[in-house]
């Protein structure tokens, strides 16, 4: 076996002599490596100084990261090289000490718990029961107000929107939508008047208004009057996970949800024809009043948005 191989036999740190080859650096030419590491450190320090300079010069944002990052990187490479090439190359060996205790210690430990502890409990079963019950009741009692203070109970909130009988359809600026406003194939997001700027209105009441023809549109049974003059309106809240169903594929007359690609057939009561959405988008029944404003005949006939336990 060569000398080189012999040095690779691990030794214990405790018994190592000062002249042991294991304590020699790994580098063949330590002087050279020292110079390179020195250069890396000098460059790193230069980068750090560069960081301070760029900061005070208010240089472009990327220069901060470039100087700081390069400085850290160079200093890091220098340190790793120092550890790898100039420090004792080893390898060293260390014995593992068994984690498990002796048999006597083990049984003494078990005895302390089972005999001393268990005995105490067994003798005062009643007290122990009371204590356990007390702690249990305390945690329950402590939990309830903590949970209840965090928010209101859902109650009927998820079943309601702000769409009422006769609500005006307005766009996001609050302008009432009139019967002549949209061309065929156009789409606009509408809200019940008065809620277009409220967070709740934007999140819950958002509705897409699409004009698909000039004639009245019937999307399904019982919906004969819901689509006057080719206007139809669906809740914009996806029935899958509540994303706004914002993409309208005009030629196929599909509403597409950009989040998980559910597709709803606009002409057939927005039934989902592909993707993970389980239910059609609820349709808002519309009518045109005497002055040509689009208004809702009523609110949605079902909760909007994704499914939840209480929903029938």
């Amino acid at each position, binding site marked *: 076996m060569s000398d080189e191989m012999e040095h690779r*036999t*691990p030794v214990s740190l405790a018994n190592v002599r000062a002249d042991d080859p294991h304590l020699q650096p790994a580098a063949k030419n330590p002087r050279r490596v020292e110079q390179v590491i020195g250069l890396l450190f000098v460059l790193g320090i230069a980068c750090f100084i560069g960081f301070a300079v760029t900061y005070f010069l208010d240089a472009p*944002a*990327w220069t*901060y*990261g*470039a100087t*700081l*990052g390069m400085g*850290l*990187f*160079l200093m*890091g*490479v*220098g*340190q*790793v*090289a*120092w*550890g790898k090439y100039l*420090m*004792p190359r*080893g*390898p*060293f*060996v*260390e*014995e*593992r000490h068994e*984690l498990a205790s002796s048999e006597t210690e083990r049984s003494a430990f078990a005895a302390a718990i089972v005999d001393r502890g268990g005995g105490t409990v067994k003798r005062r079963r009643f007290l122990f029961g009371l204590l356990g019950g007390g702690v249990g009741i305390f945690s329950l009692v402590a939990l309830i107000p903590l*949970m209840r203070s965090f*928010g*209101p109970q*859902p109650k009927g909130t998820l079943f309601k929107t702000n769409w009422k009988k006769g609500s005006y359809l307005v766009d*996001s600026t609050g302008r009432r939508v009139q019967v002549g406003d949209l061309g065929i194939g156009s789409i606009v997001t509408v809200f019940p008047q008065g809620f277009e700027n409220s*967070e709740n209105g*934007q*999140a819950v009441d*958002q509705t897409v208004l699409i004009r698909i023809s000039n004639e009245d549109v019937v999307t399904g049974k019982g919906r004969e009057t819901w689509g006057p003059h080719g206007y139809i309106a669906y809740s914009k809240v996806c029935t*899958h*996970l*509540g*994303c706004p169903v914002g*993409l309208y594929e005009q030629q196929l007359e599909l509403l597409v949800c950009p*989040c*998980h*690609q*559910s597709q709803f057939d606009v002409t057939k009561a927005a039934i*989902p024809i*592909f*993707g*993970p*959405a*389980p*239910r059609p988008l609820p349709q808002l029944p519309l009518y045109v009043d005497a002055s040509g404003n689009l208004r809702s005949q009523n609110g949605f006939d079902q909760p909007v948005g994704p*499914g*939840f*336990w209480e*929903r*029938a």
Partner: protein
Amino acid sequence: MSTEVNTERTKKQALGPYGKLGQTLNELDDRLGVAKGGRTFLDKIFPDHWSFMLGEIALYSFFVLLITGIFLCFFYTPSQALTIYHGSYAPLVGQRVSEAFASTVNLSFQVRTGLLMRQMHHWACDIFVGAIVVHMARVFFTGAFRKPRELNWTIGVTLLTLAIVNGFIGYSLPDDLVSGTGIRIAYSIILSIPLLGTYVAFFLFGGNFPGTDIIQRFFFIHVLIIPLIILGLVGAHLFLLVRQKHTQFPGEGRTEHNVVGSPMFPVFIAKTNGFFFIVAGVTALLGAFAQINPIWQFGPYVADHISYAVQPDWYMGWLDGALRVFPSWETVVFGHTIPWEVTIPSVIFPGIIFNICYVWPALERRYTKDYALHNLLDRPRDRPKRTAAGVAMLALLGMTFIASATDVIAHFLDLPLNDVLVAMRILIIASPFVAYPIAYVICKELQGFANAGKRKTANIVSRTPEGEYVSVSAPHYEDDVHNELEAIPVPKFVVEPEIPESPGGVRTVPR
């Protein structure tokens, strides 16, 4: 003159051979008794293998997260209150945005190095979770989770879960259009949990979506609660590591009862500290040159707005992909809706995955009846079933991850969206069943090569004076890393008849 020199010398002698520092250490030991334990700690041996670095990457990116995160805290306002933006980013001026969004844009553009800190924080998070996953894969494939280290594996899985959750909450904080959509999806996922969903969602958000509380609550969870738990668990993880000592690959002089490598001080300290600098440096360079999460381009969150190609951060991709491909199975029973199409892919599926991770060590113990203590690592090819199972899991998660980009793939490859989605459904279901046997066969094949993973060496053919040709393979390269990694010999199932040694010069051929 000479007396002065003598006093100096006597002073030095009084101090002992280690001078003032030695004196200080003695004072410290008088009070705390640190000498014995400290010496043992400094002498602690760390095995040298590149794969043991992966956990260090995770640790150091966590430090980067803490440092940059503290910086960001000074400038961020955790509030959903609306305000009009008047900052230096012209396209947004005059828009109604939340204070959270405005403060994030302001700290990016008006605070010097603010943008760097924000981008470093985001990159460090992506690296953190990535490093944990790769570290976990290393631990899994080499069997480092076996007895006595099951508890540390459990802590590790918990850390991964917490890192993913905190990552999600963190990128939700700027309240921009993309992350707001993510919060909306999270709300709907919570809503989908049978029986409790609506209550949990209402208590967490303080009412129906979006409410006014969630950003503030997320902030508190993100900067205090979860980091504290992570910090504690990281401490426990490292404590157990020191207590149980490192595992090591089998090799020359390495047994179940020792550790071979470099000592803590000074070798490991130098390397690991340098490595911390490198991780921080690379993160800073990424922060400088690779833009991440430019929220000013997405705009503020408005509940009825949406953008195309909404993808979460990478570690949430597998959940998003699972949601995309899952069919629309909703059931209504006794007047109650159970949205399986949400609950299964986003609650039950990750629940199963993480629970498999948690119970794997116990499962393997039971299945292999191996209750022994293990300090030497397995080479993955020597445990083909475990390796194949791990590969199958990675294949499944990899496919669901790819499925989170169905829209981008369809757009990029100019394919119909629906076809891509159907293809992804098939690929996701098929991937583990295809990956398992392939990985298994590769392991089995690798077992046949005694020198797999090593560089090829020359065959030295020499001719003896009698005219016999002898072929001997040259010794392995000494700097070949795998030289130290002697694999466990593969058991021979075929008993080969021993060829009796023949006298030189005559070749006997068994018939």
